[in-house]
C-alpha cells in the first residue's frame, strides 16, 4: 500500500517520540519557519562553537506544531546534525534536500542520511515535500543567523 511507503515506521516513531523537543539556551542562531499553505510551524535554535570551516553544531533545539512529516523530519534533523561540523551538517542537508526534490528518483545514501532515508517515500508526494523540508529551512536560516552560512563553511548550496 502506498501509504506505508510514505509513513515509514521511523517517521511515525519520531513523530510520537520526538528528539530534543523544547527550545534551549544558549544559542547563536534562531529561525521561525511556517508553511503558509497549511500553517505548520517550526522554531529552531542552533548553537555553534568554533570558527568558520572548523565550527561544530553543539546543540539544536526546536519547538513546533504540524503534521507527522514536518515534525518527524525536524526530529531526525537533530540526530543528523548535532555534534557534527557545520560542513558535515550542511553536506547532509544538501543530500536531504536533493532526496526530497527528486520526485522519488534519487537513491538515498544511508551512510549520509541515516534515519533520513525514511523520507524517500515522501518525495513522491509533491504536496508533502515542503513539510519534510520545513525544519531544514529553519536549520539553514538559524546557521546563517549564527554567522555560519553553508557557503562560509565550504558547502555549495543548490
Amino acid at each position, binding site marked *: 500500500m502506498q*501509504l506505508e511507503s510514505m*509513513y515509514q515506521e521511523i517517521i*511515525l516513531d519520531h513523530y510520537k517520540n520526538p528528539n530534543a523537543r523544547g527550545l534551549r539556551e544558549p544559542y547563536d542562531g534562531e529561525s521561525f519557519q511556517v508553511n503558509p499553505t*497549511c*500553517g*505548520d510551524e517550526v522554531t529552531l535554535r542552533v548553537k555553534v562553537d568554533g570558527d568558520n570551516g572548523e565550527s561544530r553544531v553543539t546543540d539544536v533545539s526546536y519547538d513546533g506544531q504540524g*503534521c507527522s*512529516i514536518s515534525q518527524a523530519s525536524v526530529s531526525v534533523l537533530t540526530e543528523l546534525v548535532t555534534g557534527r561540523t557545520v560542513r558535515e551538517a550542511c553536506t547532509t542537508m544538501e543530500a536531504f534536500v536533493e532526496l526530497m526534490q527528486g520526485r522519488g528518483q534519487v537513491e538515498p545514501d544511508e551512510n549520509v542520511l541515516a534515519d533520513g532515508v525514511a523520507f524517500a517515500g515522501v518525495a513522491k*508526494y509533491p504536496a508533502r515535500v515542503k513539510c519534510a523540508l520545513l525544519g531544514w529551512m529553519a536549520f539553514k536560516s538559524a546557521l546563517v543567523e549564527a554567522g555560519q552560512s553553508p557557503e562560509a563553511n565550504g558547502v555549495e548550496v543548490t
Partner: protein
Amino acid sequence: MTTTTVDHEQRHVPEPLDVAALRADFPILARTVRDGCPLAYLDSGATSQRPNQVLDAERSFLTTCNAAVHRGAHQLAEEATDAYEHARATIAAFVGADVGELVFVKNATEGINLVSYAMGNAATAGDEAARFRLGPGDEVVVTEMEHHANLVPWQQVCRRTGATLRWLGVTDDGRLDLDDVPEVITERTKVVALTHQSNVLGTINPVAPVVRRAKEVGALTVLDACQSVPHGAVNVAELGVDFAVFSGHKMLGPSGIGVLYGRRELLEALPPFMTGGSMIEQVWMETSTFAPPPQRFEAGVPMTSQAVGLGAAVDYLSAIGMDRIAAHEHALTEAAVTELDAIDGVRIIGPTEVVDRGGAVSFVVDGVHPHDAGQVLDSLGLAVRVGHHCAWPLHRRMGVPATVRASFYLYNELSEVERLARGVREAQRFFGVV
C-alpha cells in the same frame, strides 16, 4: 381553467436529484486515483468540476465565433460580443441583478480588490465618489470568519487610507456573533464586508440584520457570495447588499471568470480600479474620461469563452433547480455531520445543528494531524482539503491550527459520505489512536 389548492402547512419538498444521471455529465468523476480507487471528489468548496455542457459551450464559442469583444465590427466580433453579453444577462437574472449591475472579473478575489481599490481611488476622484472615500476616523468592518480574500484587501485599504479595521466575532459553535453588531457597526463604519456562507464552518450568515444595521449608519455592504451562489438560490436585490462577488469555477464554470455585482447607482459613482482599453469614453494625451458601468470596470480584452462557459454553467444549474440542489446538499451535510460526529475523537469545527448551514464540513481528529488524515483519505480515493482553507484567523479563533474539510456539491452521493466516515476511522487506525 383549473385551480390548485395549496396547503400552506405543507413544506414544499423539491424533487430529488437523479445524481447517477447527472454524474454522467462530469467525465472526471468516473476516473480512478491512487492505484485504482474510485474518485470521491469532496473538494468543491475549493473548485467544482465542470459538466460537458460547459466544456461544449466554451468549445463551440471558440470554434465558431471567437473574437475580441466590444471592439471591431466584423461578423465574428459581433457574434462574440453577443455571446459575451448574453452570458452577462443570464448570470444577472440568475442572481436577481440587472444586466448593467454585473461586472466580469477574474474571480471573487479580484471583485473584492476592485471595490477596495476603487474606494481607495475615491480620494482623488470627483465629488460623485465622495461617499466611497476612506480616511482616518472611518472604519471598515469584516467578520472573524472571512476567507483571506475578504480580509486582506480591507486590511490593505485601511493601511493606505488610515481607516481602521474592525470585525464581528464568531461564537464557539461557529455562528456569527450578532451581539457585536450594534457596537461594531457604528456611525464611523463606511463598509461592512462579510461572507454569505463560511468556506470552513459551512455557516450561512444572517445577512438581513447586518444589512439593516449598515443601512442605519449609512455604511456600504459587500457580500462574499462565493460559497452561497453555487449552492442555493441567491437574490442580491432581495438581500439588499450593495456589492456581491462570486467565482465561476466554484459553480461548475471555468476558472478565470468571476462576477462583481454592484447596485447601479453605486457602480455609476464608483471610480475605476484597473484602467486602459475598453473602459474609456474619451482619451486625450493629458487625461481621459471613463465609460459607464459595467464597461468602466472591464479594462482590456476580457475573458470571453470563460464568460460563455459560466453562462452555460448557470443554464445547467437553473435547469436542475437551485432548490433541488440545496436540498440534496442539505441531506449530504446532515449525513456527514451525523456520521462524523458519531466517531470518537472527531470534532466538527462549525455548527453541528444542520440549520442555516451549507455543505462544507470541517473537522479535526484527535491525535491525527489534518495533513496526515487527508493523506489517508487520499490513499482511499477521497479528495478533501486540509489546512486552514485561506481562513487562518478563523482557525485561530476556533483553537485549531488546521482542519480537514469535506465540501459537497450536486454530484456527490451519500455513499461518498459513508466512504468519508470509513476513511476517517481508517486514519485513526493507521495512526494508532484507537
